């Protein structure tokens, strides 16, 4: 598994990509060893945006620590919050109302679409197409508006609390989501035409960054990155939480193992999310949006672990409790970190120009990797 670090031969060049580089999508530094144009080694250097979120959580109560996790994977902040709330509810054995479950899943899927749309635009921009970036941001705006109406914020929502959600849905929620579904169906096909069918785009993606199924498993890749290599790893299917076991949707799996398969997985996942939203939007059960919980939450002594499927892969939340109002230790298993670890393997032997395509299809969010 461990690959030997070859000494730098004569004629090799070591260059830095990042930490200030537009295609690293944040402060990620890659030290790349090159032989001519061929990549010999990629070494990611992390820590530029480390905020010690795990340590911070130890001084916050079980209600308070959830908002910090929005700052990890800020593009799927709602799903991060969801994972944390699930873990606290598991420890407290809180049964949450059906309405809250449905609202949470609806918001999760909207977040997933927003995240994938942003990724789609950024990905196309990395490969030199500028228009998709604006198009995807315009469509994503519709979702952020929906989020703003109901949750009160556009990116770091903090809408989930242990026991349910923070507030009732906005009266216009259903109307706006339906308008969005209509808009999405209309535009997504056009955008597929614009980018997916494009010959330049395809030839820059196909057979680039090949990650075999075995490697994807052994590097711990999850989410669309692993599903592009044919790994069956959707947490929503394998370990269903909330109401995912009652919903009809397909786990998108592509077996091409290259960047283009990973691209297709994300594009198809957006359609799956839309179909989940369509199933739920007219069937939001009546009732409370929040279960009655104690004013001060105290988890019993023990260890609790839950996992959720974020837009990037599996997020694990591990809480060790000593029975106090604050957690003794919190550990987040973030999807980006494991996905990034496969980059060296994928890039080796490839060309430096393709590195951007590989990084793009890993969908890296640096605050998620560093925490």
């Amino acid at each position, binding site marked *: 598994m461990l690959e030997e670090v070859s000494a730098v031969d004569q004629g090799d060049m070591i260059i830095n990509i990042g930490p200030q580089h537009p295609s690293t999508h944040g402060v990620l530094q890659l030290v790349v060893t090159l032989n001519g144009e061929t990549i010999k080694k990629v070494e990611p250097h992390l820590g530029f945006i480390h905020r010690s979120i795990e340590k911070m959580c130890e001084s916050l109560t079980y209600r308070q*620590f959830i908002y910090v996790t929005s700052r990890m994977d800020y593009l799927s902040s709602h799903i991060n919050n969801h994972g944390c709330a699930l873990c606290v509810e598991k420890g407290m054995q809180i049964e949450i109302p059906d309405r809250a479950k449905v609202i949470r899943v609806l918001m999760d899927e909207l977040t997933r679409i927003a995240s994938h749309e942003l990724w789609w635009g950024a990905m196309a921009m990395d490969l030199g197409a500028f228009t998709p970036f604006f198009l995807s941001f315009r469509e994503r705006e519709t979702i952020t508006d929906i989020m703003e*109406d*109901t949750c*009160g914020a556009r990116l*770091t929502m903090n809408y989930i609390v242990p026991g349910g959600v923070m507030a009732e849905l906005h009266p216009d929620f259903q109307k706006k989501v339906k308008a969005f579904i209509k808009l999405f169906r209309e535009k997504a096909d056009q955008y597929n035409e614009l980018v997916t*069918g494009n010959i330049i785009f395809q030839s820059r993606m196909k057979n680039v960054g090949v990650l075999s199924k075995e490697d994807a498993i052994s590097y711990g890749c999850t989410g669309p990155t692993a599903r592009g290599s044919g790994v069956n790893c959707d947490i929503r299917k394998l370990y269903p939480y909330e109401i995912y076991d009652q919903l009809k949707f397909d786990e998108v799996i592509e077996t091409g193992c290259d960047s283009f398969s990973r691209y297709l997985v994300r594009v198809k996942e957006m359609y799956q999310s839309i179909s989940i939203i369509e199933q739920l939007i007219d069937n939001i059960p009546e009732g409370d949006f929040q279960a009655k919980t104690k004013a001060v939450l105290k988890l019993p002594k023990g260890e609790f672990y839950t996992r959720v499927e974020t837009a990037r892969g599996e997020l694990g939340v591990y809480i060790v409790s000593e029975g106090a109002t604050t957690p003794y230790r919190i550990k987040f298993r973030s999807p980006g970190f494991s996905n990034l670890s496969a980059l060296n393997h994928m890039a080796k032997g490839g060309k430096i120009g393709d590195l951007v395509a590989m990084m793009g299809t890993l969908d890296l969010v640096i605050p998620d990797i560093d925490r």
Partner: protein
Amino acid sequence: MSAIQYIKDIYNAVKSLLIGMKQTGYYFTHHKEIITQNYPEEKQQLAERFRGEVVLTHDSNNEHKCTGCTACELACPNGTIKIVTKFELTPEGKKKKAIDKFVYHLELCTMCNLCIVACPTDAIKMDQAFEHSVFDRSQLTKVLNKPGSKIMEGVE
């Protein structure tokens, strides 16, 4: 690679590019779909629940609903709110707790809404104001209760 394949590839490439260019052409001839705004001149109507800053609501008699219970102070993850209390004499001669200063550190606030949820008397709420840039950081520390304000009748 045969010559036919070569020509075929070129044909397919040009075709896929033209399909993409159709979109570009559409937006070139449809100016009405421009969605950008001239921000400082035109301002968007923000959502009702948009979280911009915490305010203590006062009515026309300069009365607020804050009892000084410090529930918001305890709920805040960042130490944004500091409540200084004092004791006031009621007309019956009893001592009663009241707020002296409701100090709000906007520079520490992350707009998580936990204080609003915690407030038992709905005294505080989130306001839509979002243009908070000032030249000096100390200007962001605000005292929310207006001078001379007092607690509303009947709020315990």
